[in-house]
């Protein structure tokens, strides 16, 4: 599990650095199509890459290795307190993602989260806080776990009440469409 997580992190780093997570054709709308990478502050990205590079030596560590555990705990903290890119707030954006439902109740459209990669948060460790967007969908939206969707709306900021006092992204969606 732990090792799997580390591998995942490394894969994610590769994704970060290459910046090729969603090579998609931009559509001519008022909504600017953005990439998940643009939601990661440059300084924080460098810090994480360094931290992950340092963790590489634990790649073959035994489960329960105290040093690995420590590094893992530190990394989790970094993940949870990931800062957002302030300059993106208030922009009209269009972004693809996978659905993670929050509510069990589906009578009306209920809020959900989107994440950049399949299976995130459900089976494997969740992505950093700045790679999760809370979506307040328009009425009548029906989604299921891990549906791939496009979201259009204004990117907002929401406080998370975590120890680090960080913020999270939120989109009050004007439109939610299936990803094709």
């Amino acid at each position, binding site marked *: 599990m732990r090792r799997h997580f580390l591998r995942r992190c490394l894969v994610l780093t590769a994704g970060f650095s290459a910046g090729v997570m969603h090579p998609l054709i931009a559509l001519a709308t008022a909504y600017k199509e953005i990439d998940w990478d643009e939601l990661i502050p440059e300084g924080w990205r460098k810090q994480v890459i360094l931290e992950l590079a340092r963790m590489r030596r634990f790649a073959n560590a035994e489960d329960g290795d105290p040093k690995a555990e420590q590094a893992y705990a530190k990394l989790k903290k970094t993940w949870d307190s990931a800062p957002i890119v302030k300059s993106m707030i208030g922009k009209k954006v269009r972004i693809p993602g996978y659905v993670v439902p929050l509510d069990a109740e589906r009578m009306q459209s209920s809020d959900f989260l989107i994440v950049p990669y399949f299976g995130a*948060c459900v089976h494997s460790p969740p992505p950093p806080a700045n790679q999760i967007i809370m979506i307040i969908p328009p009425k009548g939206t029906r989604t299921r*776990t891990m549906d791939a969707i496009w979201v259009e709306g204004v990117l907002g900021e929401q406080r998370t*009440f975590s120890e680090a006092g960080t913020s999270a992204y939120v989109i009050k969606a004007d439109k939610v469409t299936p990803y094709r």
Partner: protein
Amino acid sequence: MIWLHLAIQSALARKGALLIMVLSTAISVAILLGVLKVRDDAKTSFSNAISGVDLVLGSKGSPAELILYSVFHLGKPTNTIPASLEKDITAIPLVDWIVPIQLGDSYRNYPVVGTSTAFFERVRAQGRPLVIQAGKALTDPTSFDVVLGSRVAKSLGLTLSNQIAIAHGSGSGPKKDHSDSPFKVVGILAATGTPIDQALYISTQAFDALHDIQDGGQLQFAKLDPNSRVNAFFIGLKSRASIFSARRQIDDLKNANLMAVMPGVALDDLWSTMEVAENALILIAYGVLLTTILGITATLLIALDNRRRELAILRAIGAKPFQILFFILAEAFLVCMIGILAGWALLQALIAMYADQLRTEWGVVSSFGFPNTADLTSLLIVLFTVLLFATIPAAKAYKMALHDGLNPPSP
């Protein structure tokens, strides 16, 4: 419209056979609509049962199972987690509220839930807060008070200040019935149409006392039980966006036996496993429907031989061959329409009759309703298919009308 009139009159003259056709159509339509409706209702009833809860915490195992027993009171709770975790979890700054859920006891087949007073403020059903219809919510955790779900109160005929004896264990059958340990009904919840209606609520301390009791002993509150255990916690967060951080911090409690489940995800999982059964049901319904459509066509085809004279007379009084075609199609259309309407009415009648059983036995809340878009689509498919199939006998009638002229061979 003279042709429609004629078709009706002609049909009335052969009402015996046509009645059976209408009936068979009606039954198939009722089955088709019923399957579609049950699927829909089951889904909404299921997903409406719990809202506003961000995480359900339980002992490690199957997430779907945890949701099934903690929310729907289905199946048997297996493992427990220490109640003392409540303190640790409340200490996590992301957590707004936490409600314990204890299960395993029953009163006349209805599950008894041990919980805190916060349950009534925090847990919502169908997106709305719980409403106390009579009396009050649980307020004193150290009293043998019980709040009833509306269904429990109704079917057992219980009212405020009734005394009841809650038994240890679940299910019916002879068992220790602590008649000497009566609980007092202090409140009755308004109906929600969710499993909340079908349970009794007592405080966790009363629940523990129930378990501590010795044979023949007196039910009494021990000092706060440090070893008290619960089946699940419902957790609400201050910010839902931080759900993963919260989950991680719960993981960090170093209690290897814990599992924090997002109810939405677990429910979707549950539904995807049921999809096979769902699709099988729909397949069966469409099979029944196809049989009916073929039945209608066959009946029309067979009836045609007996109608040669009728059609010849129609020709004689000036009916053109294409009007004969229309005549046959009109009959098929009428049979189908009446069948669909009758089928829908039949289903509504069945729902009205068995809604209670559906809800109590199966946990499906069903109610009177006009067909939705999906239903209408399938009905249109039915109508269209019948008309399509009806062109076979209609085309035959058209040809016969041309060939036979006024001298049909004697049948």
